[in-house]
């Protein structure tokens, strides 16, 4: 569905964030991007979303996907603090379609049910826990039925337990709905649990240095995390990442 060719990004300050990043994304894939801090993962995501222009290279979408609908989940929940959960989730519909109609209300209610927030639809963000805010943020990204969901380290600020729970819930939603996902994370364990492919990026200027298929079948159970094969796989990705770091080439 998506073909990235030689994406390069140099900021005005002269910092080179990305150098000739190339990869392909097929329909319904769940791909994770892992890499050291500052390797341009977030920059790459912003370029795919059209929020930032690449200095060189191009992004091609398959012909039937001319008008790719994109959802974005930020590092922080990024909710409007002056609006209720319902109004926050309704925002994309209102920005794209104008005023909400009854279909929209149904759609919003459905999406809120997916993330388990239907009882909190009238709450304000400050009344919710960090995990619930992130759920609201995910609900908002799904409300327009995106073809492609971009997630920029969405669970980094959450505690371990909440994070594991949200990983499982996100995977459930994806298994049911099969949007395509690019998931940026620092956590190799998270990447291995969620995705069917892990792309390893080099330190800045970032580019994809390894494209590793994850050998575990869907649907994945939480018990996978205790599996030896899973732990071994995480270790091998971790090693691949470590060899890319400066001072690791002996």
């Amino acid at each position, binding site marked *: 569905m998506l073909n990235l060719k030689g994406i390069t990004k140099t900021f005005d300050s002269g910092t080179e964030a990305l150098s000739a990043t190339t990869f392909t994304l097929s329909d319904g894939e769940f791909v994770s991007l892992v890499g050291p801090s500052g390797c341009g993962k977030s920059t790459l995501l912003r370029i795919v979303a059209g929020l930032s222009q690449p200095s060189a290279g191009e992004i091609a979408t398959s012909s039937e996907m001319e008008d790719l609908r994109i959802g974005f989940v930020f590092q922080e929940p990024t909710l409007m603090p002056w609006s209720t959960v319902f109004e926050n989730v309704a925002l994309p519909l209102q920005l*794209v379609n104008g005023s909400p109609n009854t279909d929209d209300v149904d759609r919003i209610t459905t999406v809120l049910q997916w993330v388990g927030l239907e009882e909190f639809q009238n709450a304000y963000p400050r009344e919710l826990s960090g995990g619930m805010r992130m759920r609201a943020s995910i609900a908002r990204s799904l409300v327009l039925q995106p073809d492609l969901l971009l997630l920029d380290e969405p669970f980094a600020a959450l505690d371990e337990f909440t994070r594991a729970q949200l990983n499982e819930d996100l995977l459930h939603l994806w298994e049911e709905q099969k949007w395509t996902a690019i998931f940026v994370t620092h956590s190799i364990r998270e990447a291995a649990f969620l995705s069917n492919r892990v792309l390893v990026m080099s330190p800045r200027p970032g580019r994809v240095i390894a494209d590793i298929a994850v050998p575990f079948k869907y649907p994945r159970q939480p018990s996978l995390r205790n599996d030896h094969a899973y732990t071994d796989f995480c270790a091998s990705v971790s090693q691949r990442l470590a060899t890319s770091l400066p001072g690791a080439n002996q």
Partner: protein
Amino acid sequence: MKTSARLILPLLFGFVLLSLWEALVGFYEIPPYILPSPRDIGESLWVDGPSLLAALAITLQVTVAAMILACVTGVGIAVLLVQSKLLERMLFPYAVFLQVTPIVTIAPFIIIWVDSVFVVLLILAWMAAVFPIISNTLLGLKSADRNLHDLFKLYSASRSQTLRRLLIPAALPYFLGGLRISGGLALIGTVVAEMVAGTSGESSGLASRLLEASYRLELARALACFVLLSITGYGIYAVLNWVSNRLLRHWHESALDDPSHA
């Protein structure tokens, strides 16, 4: 218990202070044309009350009109300035001039150019009140979350959608902070303008009455005017504070009951 203590403590302090004042005036036998006792002032408030309140109504009219005008123009100017960096660079220095120029120095010109006393007072009070609104609203409009900006961009929000749904709500707490300052400044502006413009007769406001009474060495009445103006200023602040808390109570830190439980 807590609320009543919050009310009683300042009142108690005021009572002690006034008693001390009363006692000192009595003990040293200070004549009322130099320093009237609180009792004299109270008496003047009671006797002249109706006429002073009528004068206060005139002052208040100008003050409120100036506040409304300052809100409308201040927000309008801030929204205009935020549209382009160039425009802001070009025009903001003039907004600063508006703030730093003492209105007493502009008053004589306005008095020559404008016939209506009400309009003269309005212009001067507006000049005193508008800057905090421009400056705070501008800051607020620029302080919307970067990621929310990106979100609006992602869904191709129009300029007016971004303004209505993102920039204005984000600016609201800042605007209200500016408004609280402006409320006091509008009253100060009106009072100064009244004194400079030398309004008299039917249309004279409370500040003119204060000046008039002090010329006649009727200090009790002058201080009664002063007391009414102070209470009015406090009242304006209290009302604006209430409005601000009301509008922000659902979401903004400043309006939450107990910050530690946010």
